[in-house]
């Protein structure tokens, strides 16, 4: 896969998925605490989302950060717009803004969700790594 193809794939993933999370690892097996925390917030809201592991190829992260002008991972996009990384997503979860942004109800009595995530309801992660062979 060329770098241009990776960039096009990322753009398509952002454009076509209502809720798109770029992370290290997968929602089932996050490879970084920040990614785990962000996925846990989405899981706690019970929202469907797509996730892409950026680890299989360093160019994924490079192209993503070039597109988003955001230096770190994870990155959460809703309707094509960057919402933020782990800190912003966690803050927005706590204040209820994340539920508003996603159009779902805030779970009552839930504090900051603690990783590792429990059984997660989201759709399967996109398999970019499968296209890199």
């Amino acid at each position, binding site marked *: 896969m060329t770098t241009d193809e990776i960039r096009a794939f990322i753009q398509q993933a952002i454009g076509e998925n209502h809720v798109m999370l770029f992370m290290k690892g997968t929602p089932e097996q996050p490879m970084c605490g920040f990614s785990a925390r962000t996925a846990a917030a989405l899981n706690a809201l019970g929202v469907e989302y797509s996730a892409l592991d950026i680890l299989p190829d360093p160019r994924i992260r490079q192209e993503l*950060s070039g597109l988003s*002008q955001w*230096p*770190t991972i994870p990155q959460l996009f809703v309707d094509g717009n960057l919402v*933020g990384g782990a800190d*912003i997503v966690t*803050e927005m979860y706590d204040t209820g803004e994340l539920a508003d942004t996603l159009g779902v109800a805030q779970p009552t009595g839930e504090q900051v969700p603690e990783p590792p995530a429990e059984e997660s309801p989201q759709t399967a992660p996109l398999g970019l790594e499968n296209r890199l062979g």
Partner: protein
Amino acid sequence: MPTSGELKERIEASLPGSTAEVQDLTGGGDHFRAEVVSERFEGLSRIDRHRLVYDVFGDEVGGPIHALSLKTSTLEETT
């Protein structure tokens, strides 16, 4: 390897009037947490606030500064 003191100085120098509390989360000089209070954040979205702080370090964030966790507030928001 950056230290929490260096990060604090650089943030405060780049955002005049700001105060930054910086912790080295692992002691390894690559995972930091910064709580920054600045009037420059007034009227800005969280994304734009975080970008202002990330911009202080350019390519170092994601490079030698592996992770920089941020909390950004205006003075009014902290009181």
